[in-house]
């Protein structure tokens, strides 16, 4: 059972690599080194701030785009091209397929993020000439970014299990944008009354809360991140991912293939 999930995951990873997904790293490296050289010339005070802010924002954005664009096709493309026929006619359970796909994509993103993280630290070293203790906080920000990726992967898979790639992309991007403003949505729900209150509150708790996962600016300003937040974010992301994946499995288990 677990071995089949691992085989499916590694094949998914292989597909991403062969589809040249990791080439985004080149764009990332160009962007970051350009920025580092640029701020290195104009200022001596804010260069660390800029590199960390920009670097982590780029890690998050690049990864999100990859997660959504691969994620939305993971199931629907296999149904469309009928590559699934010869997989599901083997002793592969449908849920194993979904979970394998999830881990394959998540693995791709972790590897991608790992290389990007090296880039961020290299740029930091370039502008600051040495690492200082608060730089370790960047690792926490990166960890939160990966948690965010897990949730996005699971959501993209969920949409991919019942909808077309185009609609899935629209859903996933909308959720990503709304989720990034989840705190504001919650605040709005608190302030509003009656029907609006219930709708806003329901939406606020349904969409993924990416606000809490975003500590980029705090880390750039070398503010500490509490252990409490690490724990609650971890639990929240794992729970959200599990629920979204269960939804994907439930839908896919009942689906007639084309």
């Amino acid at each position, binding site marked *: 059972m677990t071995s089949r999930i691992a085989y499916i995951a590694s094949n998914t990873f292989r*597909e991403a690599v*062969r589809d040249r997904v990791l080439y985004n790293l080149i764009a990332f490296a160009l962007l970051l080194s350009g920025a580092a050289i640029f701020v290195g010339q104009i200022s001596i005070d804010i260069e660390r701030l800029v590199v960390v802010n920009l670097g982590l924002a780029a890690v998050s954005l690049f990864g999100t785009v990859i997660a959504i664009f691969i994620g939305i096709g993971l199931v629907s493309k296999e149904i469309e091209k009928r*590559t699934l*026929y*010869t997989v599901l*006619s083997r002793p592969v359970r449908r849920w194993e397929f979904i979970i394998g796909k999830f881990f394959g994509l998540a693995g791709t993103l972790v590897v991608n993020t790992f290389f990007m993280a090296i880039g961020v630290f290299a740029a930091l070293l370039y502008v600051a000439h040495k690492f200082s203790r608060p730089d370790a906080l960047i690792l926490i920000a990166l960890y939160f970014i990966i948690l965010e990726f897990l949730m996005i992967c699971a959501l993209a898979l969920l949409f991919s299990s019942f909808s077309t790639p185009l609609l899935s992309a629209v859903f996933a991007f909308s959720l990503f944008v709304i989720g990034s403003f989840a705190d504001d949505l919650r605040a709005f729900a608190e302030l509003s009354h009656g029907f609006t209150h219930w709708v806003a509150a329901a939406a606020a708790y349904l969409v993924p809360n990416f606000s809490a996962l975003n500590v980029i600016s705090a880390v750039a300003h070398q503010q500490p991140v509490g252990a409490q937040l690490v724990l609650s974010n971890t639990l929240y992301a794992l729970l959200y991912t599990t629920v979204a994946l269960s939804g994907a499995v439930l839908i896919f288990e009942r689906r007639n293939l084309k």
Partner: protein
Amino acid sequence: MAAIEILDLEKTYLVGFWCKRPKRALQPLRLTIEEGEIFGFLGPNGAGKTTTLKILMGLVFPTAGTARILGREWTDPEVKAQIGFLPEQPYFYDYLTAHELLDYFGQLSGVPARERKRRVEEVLSLVGLTDIKGLQLRRFSKGMLQRIGIAQAILHNPRLVFLDEPMSGLDPLGRREVRDLIAQLKQDGKTVFFSTHILSDAEALCDRVAIIHKGELRGVGAVDDLTSSVVGKIEVIWQGTQIPASIKALGAECHVSGDNVRAVISDNQQDAIIDALRRERVRLISITPLRTSLETYFVEKLQHSQTTAGKRA
């Protein structure tokens, strides 16, 4: 033990925007395939063959009915380790090479690592694919994909093989090879269930056939039994410009063209017409089967339904 028992499987697709109109693809189908036989599932395009196979593979869900495969419930995942499936017009991960694809499928089917490599080479040479190392499947022709499809269906040494239109997309030599391969599978003690709309493929191979049309079963049995009541046609050509009376008497339709006479006659009259021609001392040029008895039977079965449907309308 029966290899496959299809117990009143039926399928109605819902087609159209918002899934409204029901479309009947398969009437309740009851069919038993014995272990060790080659069973041909025949029908014209759109008859419901692929639908039946997809239901049996668990790819689509039936509207009603059940099936048993190798003595187990057909949805039992353990059954899947013992069956192989070639889909119609198969398509595979095009970023993989044939070796990588088969290795991956071997993993999924639980073929142990030490056997996999050997087994992949074995099936590739069995389907006649050589010199393809390092070539991604996106570069494969339709015929090569069909061969890969057959290779992956028998890779894990299954007891029962389902093939949906196995000869399609192949040239005459390829069809021949696939025929031999299917016969070999039977020799190895496997059960083969294959669909086709090409009767000659079935006639040459099958122990038994079923004929399905518009989702409805029209006949099942050994080819000889099914065709005992119908006769095929042969075409006989000889040199001459006259039509001898003795030949007309046999009920042949004759035409003179140039120096030759062409006659079409029932295949059970073959000996009689040869004897007659010998007595007439004419030079025989050729005898060709026009329509085998299975084809005649098949056409009869399909036409039968059309006339009854026509009467009702």
